[in-house]
């Protein structure tokens, strides 16, 4: 079985967000880049399948040179090979989906694992778009995955519970927290990864569907008010304020 794992490099959540001079992009100056956490579940799942029934795991990222860090880490964790599609990986999900589809379409992947969303951009869109472009099945926000002979059974989170999706392979599965507990890279893995090379390809030229035309910081929240008194007094004052000022009740 052949598995593709799509890994997105994203700004760490702790990063202070500064808008660049163009007024529409993130000022990259102080950004610390990490692998999107959901993609770590996707990669872990691929490695577990490899360990369980045997599989070839290809890690892929669309991005610039910095995205190689993501791929080096994936190799250290157990991916067999890594591919960097050089292109804009931070923008439109539809553009990224077309780049990955162009790369993947003739490669015979049985399973494509993604995160359910790339942290920060929060598009939550690349996976299902890729599934459509490749004409394969999908299951999103998956917390449990079982593979059969050419089939899959996935549990995915929905409002108020979860549901079981069954379908045919090949499929795009997007991972949610709960799918597994990602491992840490071992020293042996890190050493082995150093010997591997990352294949670099130019991403296909694509037409994007949407773009960010302005990035703005949210308005400051008005200063809050501390409610004085003992517990009973505070409780009374809070409910009164919610009723009279906020008109919540």
């Amino acid at each position, binding site marked *: 079985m052949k598995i593709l794992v799509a890994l997105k490099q994203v700004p760490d959540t702790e990063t202070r967000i500064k808008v660049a001079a163009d007024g529409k992009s993130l000022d990259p100056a102080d950004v610390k880049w990490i692998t999107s956490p959901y993609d770590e579940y996707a990669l872990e799942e691929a490695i577990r399948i490899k360990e369980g029934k045997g599989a070839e795991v290809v890690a892929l990222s669309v991005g610039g040179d910095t995205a190689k860090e993501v791929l080096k880490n994936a190799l250290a964790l157990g991916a067999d090979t890594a591919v960097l599609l050089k292109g804009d990986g931070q923008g439109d999900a*539809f553009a990224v989906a077309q780049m990955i589809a162009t790369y993947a379409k003739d490669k015979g992947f049985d399973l494509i694992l993604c995160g359910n969303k790339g942290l920060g951009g929060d598009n939550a869109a690349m996976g299902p778009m890729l599934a459509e472009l490749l004409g394969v099945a999908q299951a999103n926000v998956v917390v449990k995955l079982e593979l059969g002979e050419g089939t899959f059974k996935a549990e995915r989170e929905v409002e108020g519970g979860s549901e079981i999706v069954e379908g045919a392979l090949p499929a795009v599965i997007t991972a949610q*927290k709960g799918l597994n507990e990602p491992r840490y890279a071992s020293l042996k893995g890190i050493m082995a990864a150093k010997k591997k090379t990352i294949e670099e390809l130019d991403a296909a030229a694509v037409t994007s569907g949407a773009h960010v035309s302005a990035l703005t910081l949210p308005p400051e929240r008005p200063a809050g008010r501390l409610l004085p008194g003992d517990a009973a007094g*505070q409780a009374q004052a809070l409910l009164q304020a919610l009723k009279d000022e906020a008109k*919540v009740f």
Partner: protein
Amino acid sequence: MILVFCELKDGQIRKPSAEALSEGRRLADASGKKVGALFAGASCAGAAEAAKFGADVILTAEAPTLASYSSDAFATLLAEAVKAKGASVLLAAATAVGKDVIPRAAARLGAGYASDVTGLSMVDGKLQAVRPVYAGKAFATTTFSSAVQTATTRPNVFPAAEKAGAGTVEALAAPAGDFKSVVKEILAKAGGKVDLSEANVIVSGGRGMKDGANFKILEELADAIGGVVGASRAAVDAGWGLPHSMQVGQTGKVVSPTLYIACGISGAIQHIAGMSGSKFIVAINKDPEAPIFKLANYGIVGDLFEVVPELTKAAKAMGIGSN
């Protein structure tokens, strides 16, 4: 036309769908377009209600094969309807189904997509969306370059305003052929309360709750004021038996209630990412330096084990939540 995919539950339009439809109506009025509401299932009984939220046309795809949700079948259905109606905008609520089907339909249409948006407008005849990004630390305005524009609307942000539409019903054919994936079973959680993403009032507990059993006092407060209970990741991960579905934050649910009460939650950025869109935020924390107070409209510095029961008592005495 602006086409809005709507979900039914127990023969009624789901609230987030009604919100998306109302927003569709507003955009249509602003741009001289018509609004279509699209339903799919084994039965679409209840779809007529869409007229109340401004639908000019109600499109129903009824077939036994559509009894269970299928990503590819529903996406095909939506994309074909967009083409058949010459629609330029496709919307749905950002629910589990909406976020699953709209990006797939968008790819089929070669259309751009903006997910989980909190603001929409029509600019020069095209959709423009505003959405929170980077854990709510910034807002991105999304502009479309494709002929068809698609988006999902964040629940609890757009008002579900009643406005009569003609509501002419038209039947759509169900997609033929083998579906690539199908929902086989729904595992409902006990309780059956409103999902956090749709809740108007949320009472959340963090590590300061000290034990899962103590969440009972949050349940009691939530019951008294008509809310549901959420949790921080620290509480969910503590092994207290709280399900991940309760988690609010970057790796949990993104919520936009009218009122969010954070009890024993410090206010880490990853938690704030999930709840900064709340209209009113209340923090109850014994540490006056806790970052959550920077966000809170109302703060109570105190021991939650004293304050929360007092709140429940006072809410009952004031008759809050009973109307």
